């Protein structure tokens, strides 16, 4: 089930990375994105691994949890990602928007999903990203 109005080719080509220490949330978000037509999805649970694989895989979109399994803060990963890949769209995920929203924005996060978020919010973020990518092409 695709997201209305989005090009299949763009969905296929997009490299997505999910950095989330809760395995069930990581799997469910991945399954959801796959169901929406995204083909290229990586799943990571620690900040240390995220830092390595972001540099190697150069994802277009990263869904990044702020609290990670190895206590590397998601905000540190965001900062490093924006230095390495300034065009990557990093979508922060946390229950604490009040505490981390401002800092995320200052560090260049594309968006902030406050947990718990509905899948509609994921659709909206993807539509905005695809809208921009279509404009770039």
């Amino acid at each position, binding site marked *: *089930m695709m997201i209305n109005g989005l090009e299949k080719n763009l969905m296929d080509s997009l490299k997505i990375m999910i950095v989330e220490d*809760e395995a*069930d*949330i990581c799997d*469910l*978000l991945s*399954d*959801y994105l796959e*169901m929406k037509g995204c083909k290229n999805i990586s799943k990571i649970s620690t900040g240390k691994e995220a830092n390595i694989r972001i540099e190697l895989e150069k994802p277009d979109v990263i869904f990044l949890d702020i*609290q990670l399994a190895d206590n590397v803060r998601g905000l540190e990963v965001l900062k490093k990602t924006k230095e390495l890949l300034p065009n990557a769209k990093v979508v922060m995920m946390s*229950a*604490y928007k009040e505490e981390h929203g401002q800092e995320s924005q200052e560090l260049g996060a594309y968006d902030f999903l406050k*947990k*718990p*978020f*509905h*899948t509609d919010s994921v659709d909206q973020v993807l539509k905005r990203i695809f809208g921009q990518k279509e404009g770039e092409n």
Partner: protein
Amino acid sequence: MATLQNRFHELANWHQKIIFSAVMAKEILLDEDVTQLPELQLREILFRSINILSKVDQYVIAADKTIDEMKSFIYKKVSPDVDITSQNK
């Protein structure tokens, strides 16, 4: 560490899992015209959907356990009869 902040974080994660599971189970069924599918394929789709739904009750119970723990802690610090709407203004 069992801080109140960590418990709120846990609670948000349980709710996150409940939302995603409910949507996934629904979309698996909506994605296909189930009335037109061969039996084997229909069984597979139903099995996937039931598999996801079977976790929802576990998530709800876990979320409730977290709420109970938070409630007993908060009630010791703040009277349960305090009007929190007026306190938040």
